[in-house]
């Protein structure tokens, strides 16, 4: 579902006034991208929960949206912040499910045949957390290093290093 900026603007005003139908239209327009972001940054097991949480948070925060950027930009930034803030919790839960954190990395390498390269999305999922998050934010979402650094509480140099690390690891996984 795609809305014109005018329609979207009207729905934002309506939703801020408490109209759930307008908010549902906004959800229908943006849930794909929010879910993709959650899926790539946090993994498939948390993506749907996080997507719901993002929209619930957006509903309660709509009053703070001043229209300085598009609603989408505001929403995705809110999503990134929420997903990043959940990192530690998710990591702890993940450790309960996967007692051996490095298990995947120690599995025997797949036999390499043409056409058997790991799916690109699956390869992203194999990246260590920091590298994965920077890769998704920079390469998929298009945030600059300075903004990534601010969101993740690291410096821009670290963001660049993590990105390079992610690129080289992906290359290895996908060969």
């Amino acid at each position, binding site marked *: 579902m795609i809305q014109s900026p005018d329609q979207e603007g*009207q729905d934002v005003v309506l939703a801020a006034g408490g109209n759930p139908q307008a908010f549902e239209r906004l*959800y229908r327009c943006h*849930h794909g991208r929010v879910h993709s972001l959650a899926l790539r940054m946090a993994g498939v097991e948390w993506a749907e929960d996080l997507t719901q949480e993002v929209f*619930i948070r957006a509903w309660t925060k709509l009053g703070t949206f001043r229209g300085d950027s598009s609603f989408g930009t505001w929403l995705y930034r809110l999503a990134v912040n929420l997903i990043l803030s959940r990192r530690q919790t998710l990591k702890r839960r993940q450790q309960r499910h996967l007692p051996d954190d490095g298990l995947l990395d120690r599995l025997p390498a797949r036999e390499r045949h043409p056409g058997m390269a790991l799916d690109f999305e699956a390869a992203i999922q194999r990246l260590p957390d920091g590298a994965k998050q920077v890769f998704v934010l920079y390469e998929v979402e298009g945030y600059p290093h300075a903004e990534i650094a601010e969101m993740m509480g690291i410096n821009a140099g670290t963001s660049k290093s993590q990105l*390079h690390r992610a*690129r080289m690891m992906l290359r290895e996984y996908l*060969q």
Partner: protein
Amino acid sequence: MKHPDSRRFSDFLEGDLAPGEAKELEKHLAECDACSLVFRDLRAHQQQARDLPDRFPSRDLWPGIAAAIQEEGGQDPHVIRLHPATSEPVRPWRRRFHLSVPQAVAAGLVLAMFSGVVGARIDHRSGSPTEAFQEPTSQGAGSSWVGMVREATPGLEAMAVEVAGLEEVLAQRRGDFDPRTIEIVEKNLGIIDGAIRESVSALRADPGNRFLENNLERAILAKGEYLRDAAFLVIPVS
């Protein structure tokens, strides 16, 4: 042959190399198959990442969100909870409208400016949100919609009267303001009034529904907040 550090490939992809360095790297890549292969892979993956399609959830998440925001409504500080008349809550609405004298004057001017608009004519969207509010106004511009609110949810009348009262008192000052600003604010007020009207209609069909009552309160609250914000944006003409 001396190979560059692979970090240079990343710098190159990000456009961070100085022109001289970029030229040197390009020259090396043209001559070195091994480095060229690595760089081509990195560039291909970059493109692949940019082209990734959206991945949609496996199920419709909206029902869960709708249920949560309905529940959340009771906890949202913007929402005025409905309680039995015996225990009147401290309403955020009232806290928010403790204005200083200059603020009150400014808000009053804006309310005045738009009172005619809200009461008489906001019809840019299909469905003309305020058509239903266009009763003859011997009692004042806001009286018709206040009546509708009172009929739907008597407990909200006082809040509606606060807004409508200001509209009425200051109705004549509309001409003091820039017409373009009036147009924008008028349009947005029309949208909010549409939400008020929708909630009132829904409450007529389902009287006493707390979710709908909360919606109506939020819409009236939003209208008041919008007017307050607009008070500090609008610049009187001369």
